[in-house]
């Protein structure tokens, strides 16, 4: 018998959505400036798969000013019970990260969503460790311009796409669609860089990949160049 090298049994990689809303830190980043509502919608849609229980939603004041507060009626239409949500409002980023960590550490939150302006490697590493201990997924909603390596499990870059054709009224918007790029993934390294064209199914309130708009490899991330539809990204003034 000859053994050339050491061969391990290949481990099966999880399919879509690659462990989103499972334990670990998942970054959801704006595809272009102004896509934060799409990120929030993507996060809320992914929470459908989370454990039942309370969701702690931490938001920094600047995110709330820029994109508004979470609406109960909107959550209800997205299929989630607004009564499950506990909102934490902070002014400073460090406080938001601390509250996120505290909520995940408590073990009583089914998921923690945090809208923060920035989280460095140390912060994401801390959050990952806490999340893996207690099993509470942490979704970080971050503004456009998030780059670089972090300790996060995955990074999704989400942008809005024109909605599906409306069957009953051609002039009305149809089902919500997003373009999600899986920029990095520890669970499924081979899927990193793929583009998913997603649609929200109004009946089952779940995410599904749009047939016909097959997922393909993403072009290298060039802000604003995607789709040809997106307006040029705007950096915040000042």
């Amino acid at each position, binding site marked *: 018998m000859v053994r050339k090298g050491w061969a391990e049994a290949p481990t099966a990689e999880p399919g879509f959505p690659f462990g989103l809303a499972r334990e670990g830190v998942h970054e959801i980043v704006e595809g272009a400036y102004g896509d934060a*509502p799409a990120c929030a919608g993507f996060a809320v849609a992914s929470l459908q798969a989370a*454990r039942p229980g309370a969701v702690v939603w931490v938001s920094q004041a600047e995110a709330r000013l820029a994109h508004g507060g979470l609406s109960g009626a909107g959550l209800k239409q997205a299929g989630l019970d607004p009564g499950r949500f506990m909102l934490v409002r902070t002014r400073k980023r460090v406080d938001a990260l601390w509250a996120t960590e505290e909520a995940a550490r408590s073990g009583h939150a089914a998921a923690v969503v945090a809208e923060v302006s920035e989280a460095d490697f140390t912060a994401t590493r801390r959050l990952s460790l806490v999340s893996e201990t207690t099993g509470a997924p942490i979704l970080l909603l971050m503004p456009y311009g998030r780059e670089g390596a972090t300790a996060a499990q995955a990074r999704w870059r989400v942008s809005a796409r024109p909605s599906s054709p409306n069957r009953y009224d051609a002039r009305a918007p149809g089902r919500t669609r997003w373009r999600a790029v899986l920029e990095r993934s520890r669970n499924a390294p081979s899927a990193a860089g793929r583009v998913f064209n997603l649609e929200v199914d109004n009946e089952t309130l779940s995410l599904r990949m749009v047939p016909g708009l097959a997922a393909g490899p993403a072009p290298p991330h060039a802000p604003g160049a995607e789709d040809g539809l997106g307006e040029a990204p705007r950096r915040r003034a000042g």
Partner: protein
Amino acid sequence: MAAVNAPARAYGIAPGLSFSDACARAPALISEEIDRTGDAAGLKTVAALMTRWTPLAAVDGLDGVMLDVTGCAHLFGGEAAMVGGIARRLDEGGITARLGLAGTPGAAWALAHEGASGTILPQGGEADGLKDLPVAGLRLSPDALRLLRRFGLTRIGQLYDVDRKSLARRFQSAEAVGAALLRLDQALGRRSEPVDPLRLPPDYAARQPCPEPLGHLDGVREGLERLLGKLAGDLAAHGVGARDFTLSAYRADGTVSRTGVSASRAVREAAHIARLFRDRLERVDPGFGIDLLVLEARRTEPMGAGARPLSVDLAASALDESALAALADRIGARLGEGAVRVIEPAESHLPERAEAAAPFEGRLPDWSCIERAPQGPRPLRMFDQPEAVETLAEVPDGPPLRFVWRRVARRVMRADGPERIAPEWWRKTGGGAKPRARDYYRVEDQTGRRYWLFREGLYDDGRGGAPQWFVHGLFG
């Protein structure tokens, strides 16, 4: 002259004298403009200090502090020791004071102002004790005093047996005699007189005197632990929990430093309260050393003995509100009250009134009771204040073709609506403006972003000028 010291009094200068008269009697008189606000603040500090002896301390008039020491004396080894302790403490602080202790506020006032300092009257001995004091001890107006003196009534004891009807006849008005008799009755305990305390007395309190002044926060932490043990025992014994806790650190130099925490629901677990205090303890400044720690509990509510879920599964799957409350308390202790909120539904058609981010009070809101779902689509994110947009091409009955929001022009590709939301005419609007109906549209721009636009007012509705467009929310 408002106040004089002992050497000045020797010259015959008394409060109420005019300044020129006083200068004539004592040419070397040193005078200073009276600072009433400063005095009031100083008096408040003195009253705050007195809370180490009793929680019921009140500022009395311009120059006095009234303490209700009911049930407090045994903590200090009896009334005499307590009065002695207060006198010593004030003396060390450089404050000249006259003390009196009696069964009624009026009698105590008379003793402090007219009697020998430090007099203690036994329970029920007011009539005997006040007998020989001047009537000035009765807190009467100068006019009433002058009148009494004119009748030859100079001692309080002389008033006991005076026929009240004949006394009334000699006063000019019924109110004046009423006031005089009221003060007499209050001093003798025939009519009640409440004390208006500076701080609300706590429902429960625990105190920890320190034999050696604490100079370090570690000592405070240790003291807090002991206090929490005592207080939690008391609360549990009475079947209650509290929502506000205040730790007062009385320093040896006569100042006090306070810090407090609040819980979103009634609690009594010592470990939990200690965790809330963890970040707050740094705000306690030991100064020259702390010699007394007091922990007070307020806003108490009945609280049953906690039942734990039988299985871990049950605890993890159900919404464990008490665990969430503990988490909310920890966050609130660090980020301030109001940092933790829930989305509370309300009965209203107006989107901004239909829900509110209410402070978390230990209970998650129940949305299942809202049966009527809104007619149209609702955005995931809503602005607190709708933001005005500039429309570039309008059609009379429909959304604009283009609009500018946040200085970016957006082309409307698709839209649905309108959903008309009528104003709540039964509510008063400020400024007399007539409320206008709103037409809401969901519009999608060229990039696929969806906005919740509304037009306030209709064309030609006769309720103000041209309709205004606003963006109220953003769809996910």
